[in-house]
């Protein structure tokens, strides 16, 4: 783990050791640069919020962590990202294994057009996580419980996942993501389509999940970032403007831009 001292962004001391370390990350879509020389540490068992105005590259950056950008032909990622000490863009890295360690929940709930049970069971099945049928059932039920959905759907696990409400679908996607027991969960605006009640349920959920998981969340809601995260990183036009303790970012931001954004003057 090589420390880069020429950092412009501040790498402050954290409560816990970083599990994800990004250094000098550049991302290009064809000729267009979406992420410009970003370095950021994600501490373990904490919630890190990525904030910034629309189009600033939050999703792009988030997707670098589980190499989801690989599936976009025009997308080029350079720089160094380490997960638990390993370069995730290294030549020997198996993307499938990486993604089984780093799960993802998307902005728009995207359950498979299959039953609720199969939605959650799919991950464990392809990764061979269950020894028996009973065990698989166990995994599915615990995951649904963790995601706070089980009580609502316990009697209709055969029904298609697409028949649930928007908030339920998003929780189903979270259950699906935790069913493969990842270390990190990346969440891209998980609550953007939800009402305050569903949002509250999911925020509670995240709060309880951070015991076991490291969470990186992209959000447009300052309140949400303030409520759930311990760390916050502010992006603007593809650059990381400022990062650090949520508390200090919201109370005494070092940069004028950050100040303007969180007080609602840009964005």
């Amino acid at each position, binding site marked *: 783990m090589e420390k880069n001292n020429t950092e412009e962004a501040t790498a402050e001391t954290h409560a816990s050791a970083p599990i994800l370390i990004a250094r000098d990350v550049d991302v290009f879509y064809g000729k267009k640069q979406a992420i410009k020389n970003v370095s950021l540490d994600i501490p373990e068992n904490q919630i890190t919020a990525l904030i910034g105005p629309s189009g600033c590259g939050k999703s792009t950056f988030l997707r670098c962590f*589980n190499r*989801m950008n690989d*599936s976009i*032909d025009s997308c080029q990622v350079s720089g160094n990202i380490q997960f638990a000490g390993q370069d995730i863009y290294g030549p020997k890295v198996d993307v*499938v*294994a*990486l*993604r*089984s360690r780093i*799960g*993802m*929940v*998307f902005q*728009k709930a*995207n*359950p*498979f*057009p*299959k039953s609720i049970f199969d939605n959650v069971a*799919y*991950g464990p099945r*392809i*990764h061979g996580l269950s020894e028996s049928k009973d065990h698989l059932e166990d995994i599915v039920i615990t995951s649904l419980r963790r995601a706070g959905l089980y009580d609502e759907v316990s009697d209709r696990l055969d029904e*298609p996942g*697409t028949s649930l409400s928007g908030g339920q679908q998003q929780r189903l*996607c979270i259950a*699906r*993501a935790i069913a*493969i027991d990842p270390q990190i969960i990346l969440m891209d605006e998980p609550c953007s389509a939800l009402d305050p009640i569903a949002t509250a349920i999911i925020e509670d959920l995240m709060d309880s999940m951070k015991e076991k998981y490291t969470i990186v969340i992209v959000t447009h809601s300052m309140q949400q970032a303030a409520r759930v995260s311990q760390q916050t990183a502010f992006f603007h036009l593809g650059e990381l403007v400022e990062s650090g303790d949520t508390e200090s970012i919201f109370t005494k931001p070092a940069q004028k831009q950050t100040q303007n954004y969180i007080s609602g003057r840009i964005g």
Partner: protein
Amino acid sequence: MPDYLLTTSPQMAKRHARHLRFQWYGRVAIAVSISFMLLMFTAIFVRGAGAFEKTMIAVDIEFAEAVIDPRGTRVEMDLKQGNYKPLILSGLQEVVPSATERKERNRLYKLVSGGAAFDLGERVAAKPDMIGTTQRVWIAASSEVDLYIKGKVDPESDEAVRRLNDQDIAWVTTLQQEGRVKRKFNRVFFTSGDSRAPEMAGILSAALGSFFSLLVCFLIAFPLGILTAVYLEEYAKKNLLTNLIEVNINNLAAVPSIVFGLLGLAVFLNFFNLPRSTPLVGGMVLALMTLPTIIIASRSILRSIPQSTRDAAMGLGASKTQTTFHHVVPLAMPGMLTGTILGMARALGETAPLLMIGMVAFIVDIPKGITDVATSLPVQIFLWADSPEKGFVELTSAAIMVLLVFLILMNLFAVYLRRRLESRR
């Protein structure tokens, strides 16, 4: 509340009018196309309905051993090929005793189908204990008598131009008066192959030929087409090569079908030496022809599957192949099947490519597999439409009806499959 909100302004009136106008355009368009279709169907039906019935004549036949099996061997082949003509003739003469001269007897015999004697042979071979008895047997009338009975010959017209002369018609009338003429369901049409005699010609051989060809076509074109589409859409990088392939596929879809026939002739027949005139080669040629259609249809279906589905699977650590085959392809399958079946429906109607590989031919035998010689439904229609005998006119229309039924069945099957696959979600 200001009242202009609730009353119709001139602009609103215009909008309403446009709305109404478009509705009517649509309705008129539908009405026009439906009436064309009805017109076509009734024309075919009116012309072809007669083919489902045929005229039979009852003849008392003395199954004399001396004529059928003079040596008394009862060998099946001999019984089949026995000389039944005199038996039929004497049976007819019992009803029309006046016909004694050679020429008259010849004309009298022409009232029954040329195939009647062979038909009797088959019956006797199947039941040899008929020999020695006299039985009333219903045998097929000739096509000319059949047309007369169906009212398609005008007995008032000039005798010289009719194929049945006054004498023939008088004989038929005598037979009718004795209750020896009836029309019955034309089973032969559904159970036999082509024939030069309209009353003995059937569609089965062609229908099976079409079936086998389409089977081969499906088994080749469906997997090839879908794998190609999936590869190009899900795996291949966009570069010069894939662009080139794409352009070529689009061009192939527009190539006239006869070109595929020429290709089949050159490659399958001349190079690989596959058997000529068989559904195997026919199906392969049709597969080449439908492949581009299937690929193009499948690709556009695949493109319409939302990226979020792929993201969901890949976010869970599914590999590219797992994502594609667990999620994307099943979602696209109903659409790809529909595309395939539409492509095959087009293939079902093709004759041009089959001409080149020898499937446009006179074939009597019923094909039993993909390597037996066969024709296909449109080819049979084409051949019958081109035959001089009048009896083939109604057969042609009847064959078109069979082709339409085939098409409808295929489309229903497509709908069924789609429903089934969609209900699985």
